[in-house]
Structure formats: structure tokens, C-alpha cells
């Protein structure tokens, strides 16, 4: 292959990988926050679907992608609120409510799509926005600085969420409430309030993640368009060990492996493509196998908080 071609491939792999990483990054950062507060939200898939639909629908009606994204965020927040009411206020088993939420999100998005759109329709979604100057740098420009604004936001969100977690009083409470809720409670911070806030923010990000698929990537909505991305995002939270940087690493690793296998297929290396499709999943597991160091999962993860109940 010619030099130029290889260069093009490299650019392609990186650019595609970054594009693929966005939804995982957004959803996983949200789930990280939720889990840090002690709630295991298995309903991510459903929230993303709702975000995907409302992002598409509002853009479809108003022709304004920004309004679409806003709608997706609101939809996500409402789904997060629902999860909060069921799993925090009513202390429901989080595994079940999560799966319930997934089904609900899948159903509602599909239903609304049928009732209010009625078939495949396309929108003028977000276009890539080349950052002036930076975007013109050869090689690096097309790789990193020619994406849609959600992409830039998602990557910006990594340092932001790190800062919020480790440099603000609210972040301190979040880190504490998932680990030792009774400590937070006895210091006069409401465990319920913290968990509601985190679930809602997590929902917003998941909604936005879903909207990325419709408003930014495909410019259309279709039944179950997320195709299991919500669950991958949850897995990536564990990969990232509840740290924004770890989640960034996980999302990029997974997506780069994915875009790499797409290119391998397109360039016609001859072997069962299923093996290629498996690659990102295998890579992720292997990467976690060889990772080390003490892990501190949120000790109260999945446990509804009850006052005065020991350990």
C-alpha cells in the first residue's frame, strides 16, 4: 500500500474510533456518577433509547439539532428521575428496576416513533465542526479536530467530571455517599438527595449519548437503534474503575479496536469477519486482566440505604 494510503488509514481509524467512542464515553461517565453515589442503574439502554428518539423527534419537528439535544437531555433526566423514585425512594431491587427501565425505554421510544413519526425519516442533524487553525493541522486535524460539538463536549466532560468529583464539596459528598452512606447521613447530608441528583445527571448524559446516535451519527431514528450500547457503557464503568480517566481509556480502547476491525474488513483481509467483530470485546476483557492495583468499588453500590442498619 502507498504511504498516503497508510496515512489515510491511520487517520480513518482514529477519527472513526473517536466518533464511535462518544456515546460510550457520555453514558459511562453518567453511570460512573450514579454508581459512585451507590446506585446501580442497569436501565442505561432504555434511557439512551429515549434520548435517541426525542433528540431525533424534536430535531425532526423544529429543524434545530440543539433543541433536539436539549429534548434528549430532558428525556434522560426524566428517566433518571423515574429510576431514582423506584430505586431510592421505594428502595426497589436495582437490578430489576434497571431491566424494567430498559424495556420501558425501548418500548416507549418505539411506540412514539410509530405514533408520531410513522416510518424512517431523516433529519439535518449535527455536522462535524472543524476547529479553526487546529483543524487544519495535517493528519492531527482530521483525526481530532474535525468532529461534531458533542464529541468535543464529551471529551471535555472527562476533566470536568474529574474536577467535580475531586475538587468540589458536592463531589466529595458523591464519593462518600456511595462508599459509606451512613457517614454522609450523620453529617447532615441527605443520602436520598445525593442519589436523586446523581441519577438525574446520569440520565441526562445517557439521554445525550442516545441523541448522539440519532442527531449526530445517523441523522435518523429506528427501533432499538442503540443495539446494546447501554450495556457496553455499564461494562466500561467497571473497566474504568469509577474514574473518569479510566472510562476515557476504556471507551477509546473499545472504540479504536472497533474502528480498527471495520478497516480490516473494508480493506479485505480474508478471514471470518465474526472474529473481527468480536475483537473489541475480547480486547476489553484482556486489558482488564492485565490491569492491577487496589480497586475500591463503591461499597454501598446496589444497596438501598436504611438508617440504623449495620454494615
Amino acid at each position: 500500500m502507498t504511504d498516503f494510503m497508510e496515512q489515510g488509514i491511520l487517520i480513518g481509524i482514529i477519527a472513526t474510533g473517536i466518533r464511535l467512542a462518544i456515546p460510550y464515553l457520555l453514558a459511562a461517565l453518567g453511570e460512573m456518577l450514579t454508581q459512585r453515589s451507590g446506585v446501580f442503574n442497569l436501565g442505561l439502554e432504555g434511557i439512551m433509547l429515549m434520548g435517541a428518539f426525542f433528540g431525533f423527534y424534536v430535531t425532526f419537528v423544529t429543524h434545530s439539532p440543539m433543541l433536539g439535544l436539549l429534548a434528549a437531555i430532558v428525556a434522560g433526566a426524566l428517566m433518571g428521575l423515574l429510576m431514582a423514585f423506584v430505586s431510592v425512594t421505594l428502595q426497589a431491587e436495582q437490578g430489576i428496576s434497571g431491566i424494567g427501565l430498559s424495556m420501558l425505554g425501548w418500548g416507549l421510544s418505539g411506540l412514539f416513533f410509530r405514533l408520531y413519526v410513522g416510518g424512517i425519516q431523516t433529519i439535518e442533524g449535527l455536522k462535524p465542526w472543524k476547529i479553526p487553525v487546529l483543524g487544519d493541522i495535517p493528519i492531527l486535524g482530521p483525526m481530532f479536530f474535525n468532529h461534531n460539538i458533542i464529541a468535543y463536549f464529551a471529551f471535555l466532560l472527562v476533566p470536568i467530571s474529574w474536577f467535580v468529583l475531586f475538587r468540589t464539596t458536592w463531589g466529595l459528598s458523591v464519593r462518600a455517599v456511595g462508599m459509606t452512606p451512613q457517614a454522609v447521613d450523620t453529617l447532615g447530608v441527605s443520602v436520598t438527595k445525593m442519589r436523586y441528583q446523581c441519577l438525574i445527571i446520569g440520565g441526562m448524559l445517557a439521554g445525550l449519548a442516545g441523541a448522539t446516535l440519532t442527531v449526530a451519527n445517523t441523522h435518523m431514528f429506528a427501533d432499538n437503534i442503540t443495539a446494546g450500547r447501554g450495556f457496553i457503557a455499564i461494562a466500561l464503568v467497571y473497566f474504568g474503575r469509577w474514574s473518569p480517566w479510566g472510562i476515557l481509556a476504556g471507551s477509546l480502547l473499545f472504540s479504536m479496536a472497533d474502528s480498527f476491525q471495520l478497516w480490516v474488513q473494508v480493506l479485505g483481509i480474508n478471514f471470518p469477519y465474526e472474529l473481527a467483530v468480536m475483537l473489541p470485546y475480547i480486547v476489553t476483557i484482556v486489558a482488564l486482566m492485565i490491569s492491577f492495583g487496589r480497586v475500591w468499588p463503591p461499597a454501598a453500590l446496589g444497596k438501598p440505604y436504611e438508617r440504623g442498619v449495620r454494615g
Partner: protein
Amino acid sequence: MSSKINHLEMRDIVKRFPGVLSNDHVSIDIAAGEVLALLGENGAGKTTLMNVLYGLYQPDEGSILINGEAVHIESPRSAIDKGIGMVHQHFMLVPTLTVCENVALGMPSDKGALLDLEPVARKIVEIGATYGVSVNPNACVWQLSVGEQQRVEIIKALYRGADLLIMDEPTAVLTPQEAQDLISLLKIMAKQGRSVIIISHKLNEVMEVSDKVVVLRDGKKVGAVNTRSTNPEELARMMVGRDSKMITREHREYQGECVLCVEDLCVTNNMGTPALRSISLGVRPGEILGIAGVSGNGQKEFAEAISGLRPVDAGKILLSGEEITNCSPKKIIDKGLGYVPEDRLHVGTIPSFNIWENLLLKDHANAPFAKCGFLNASLIRTHSETLVSEYDIKTPDLETATGKLSGGNIQRLILAREITRQPKVLVAAYPTRGLDIGAAEYVHEMLLNASMAGMGIILISEELDEVQKLSDRVAVFFDGRIMDVLPAEAADEKTLGLLMAGLCITKESISDNGMEGKEIG
């Protein structure tokens, strides 16, 4: 923050839990500058009453008055705002956070939303200096010894500048020195016009620090006296409802082989620093070897290494002649070692398992309780019933989840299990920590009887009188070393105290680096 608390009263407080009446029309009152002691057996309702005062529980009946006017404390937040602080019986610390962060938690920051730990750290050092409760503000809590964690809890309360400080068994895990410091601290606070409510099972402390004593039994108030006009015996009688019997132990001499020998044992702790620096010890059949020392000087690691829960870096452990160094816990148990662990709730038992399941924790797979892989339910049941009555473990039935039992009863269950297995050696770590007088006496009796029956016993404890009363010999741990091994009669409070502090008459050298050694431990 509202006006200062000059007088606080809890009137006819009633608090019910499913199946339990934890507080039955209890009334207490306390004025500024007073120290009120709450006494009572395990499960008497002391913590519940204080949780009501701190806004954690809402009383089913009764009212709370501050400076004469009724107040409604609907949450810890409003308790804190009203100037009430509480140091809880079970630590309320976040292990992954630093001391600083734990203290700053829930407090407004000078920089608004941004975290600003500098001043917090400074104030922590300040408080440490004034009250003699020093901890490294930047250490992570999970790295701290129990004693240090207790200090953090106290600092948390002081930091919030409470007028009224509730202390739920603060000295349960403190060494004599630490306890002394705390007592004087409380006195200072009282002088400053603060009020203190202290819960304790240690009557001598109560006598020393308190102005008034209230005694609870089964949720009812059974007595309220001025400390000056009472004495420990009376208090004990009020609590237990009978005279407490004095344990006496005639002194014996031991010859012959050690049933457990430890030679040059070296072990690393969770932080990867040395916890034991070549320890050598031995206990003979029927002997009780006391191990005194400030918690965090290697006792925990020592017990874990012997029972196979912690890898041994160097040295040998022999159980009745056979080497068990780095064997699996299973093997060591089978070879006849019993262990009453420090964390009785999460290591000694499985909280969600019921009584009989926990009684069988170590024997579930052994005949006659299991035949070819199947549990023999009927036999297990009868066996458990006999144990429950024999060690009178207070429980509704055998199906009750062990986590629901009071600390005393959980400890009885563990002892019942460990002793009836008749191990050659029994390691008991802090067996009476947090237990009321009655329960503590009972545990002591059990240990003595076991030793009479020829069991070698290693008793790890911070309670000097406990160590003195029970042990034949006392080894003092400091910074992973044995300062000295004394015969019982030589082990008086003063000597032990010095040795535990790392000071000793002969070896000046250690005394210098002593203190920082303590910091690491």
C-alpha cells in the same frame, strides 16, 4: 446555628422497632457544663435514645426541649445546627477518603462550591494540639488503626463546634492512655461550658468523668443518680439487676512443651509495611498468654498470620509440633486452632446467615453434621439448640439472622462455636470490646474454663485489668516487636502502660523512635 444550649431535656421518649420497644418513656435532662453518663446492658436502648436526640430516628412519642422550648429535630442536619454533635458507636468514616475529607464532609467551604482542604487540615492539627487527639490529616482512613479512627470521629464532632457532645462508647477501642486523654478532654469541654453525654460500659470511667448517671434496662429508665452519691457496685447492680461476681484466678506455674510456638515471625500489613518484626512466642496447654498493646501494633496481623489468613514473610509457626506456616486456614483449623476475630460481625460471623448456620461455620462439612456432602439438619438443629441454651445466646429462634443480635450475643455465639470445637489453641482478639459488664464477665468465665480444660489461650486485649485478671503471662506488643514478657504478678498497670507506649527502662533506644513508630502502626 441557633442560640447556645444551656439546658436540654428529653421527655418520655418512646421508640419502637418491629418487635422491640427500644425506648419506653425515657426522660433525661442535662445542663451546660454537665457530663451525663448513660449506662445499660447491650440492647438496653442507649444508642437508640441518642439517635433520637441526634435526629436519626423520630420518636414515636415524647418531646425534646432546648432551653425550655420544644424543638423538632427532624434530621442530623438540624441536630448539628442546634449545636448537637455525636460520636457514633460504629464508625461513620469513609475509608477511601482522607482524614481531612472525612472532616470536611457536609461542611460549607470557604471557596463556595470548591473544596478547600487547607484550612480544614490546619484546624485539625489545631484541635489535635489543644485536645491531644493528633492524626495525620492527609492519611487515608483505611490506613488508620481503630484508635486513630476513633480520634477522627471525635475531631469531626469538635470541628463542628458542638455545644452538646454525644459519645457512644468512645473508649471501647481506646488504650488506657488514650482513654485517660479522652476523659481529661471531656472534663475540659465541660469546664468550657459544653454538655457531654457519654455512653460507656466502663464504670471507673463513668465514676471519674460524669456528674450524673442514668441507667437503662430493656428500654426503661431504671435509675438516675448523682455520681458523687454512688459507687461502681451500685451502678453494676442497677444495670445487671444482680451483684456482679468478681472473677478470681489462682496463679499457676507451667512447664513442658508449648502447644503453639512462634519463631521469628515476620508479617506485612495491608499498607505493605512490616507489621511484625521477628516475633517469638509460645503458649503452653492450659495457659492464658495475654497480649497487651495499643491496637495497630501488630496484634491483628499476628492473629491473622497464625490462623492462616495472612501470608507469613519469614519465621515459623508450629502447632503441637507440626509446622503450619502459610498453610490454608482450612488445614490450620483442622489441626486444632480456634480464633475469635476482632471484627465479630463480618469475619467472625456472616450477618445474613441465621444462628445455626453461623454455629456450623467451621464444622458444616465434618461428620456428624454432614454425611457424604449432605447436611444433617435434625442433628444440627438439636446441637445448635443445646449451644444456644448452654451459652444462653438471646435470640427469638434459630432462624434469626445473626446480624440482628446485639454485640454481646454475637460474641457468645462465636465463643460457643470456637470453644465447643475444643481446639488445642484459642486466639481471642479483643473478645469483650463493646460488651456490657455482664457479657464481659461471661466471656471471661468461658475463657477461664477453657484454659482449665487444658486449652492454650492467646488473649489479645487493650483492657489492662482484663489482661491482668486472666493472664498467666503478659506479652506487650509495640511497633511489631515484643517489648517484654512479664509474669502476671509483675504486670501492674504502670509497667504495662510504659511498655505499651514503647518506653522501657532498659532499652532507651526504642523509646526515642517510639512515638513515630506508633504513628505508623
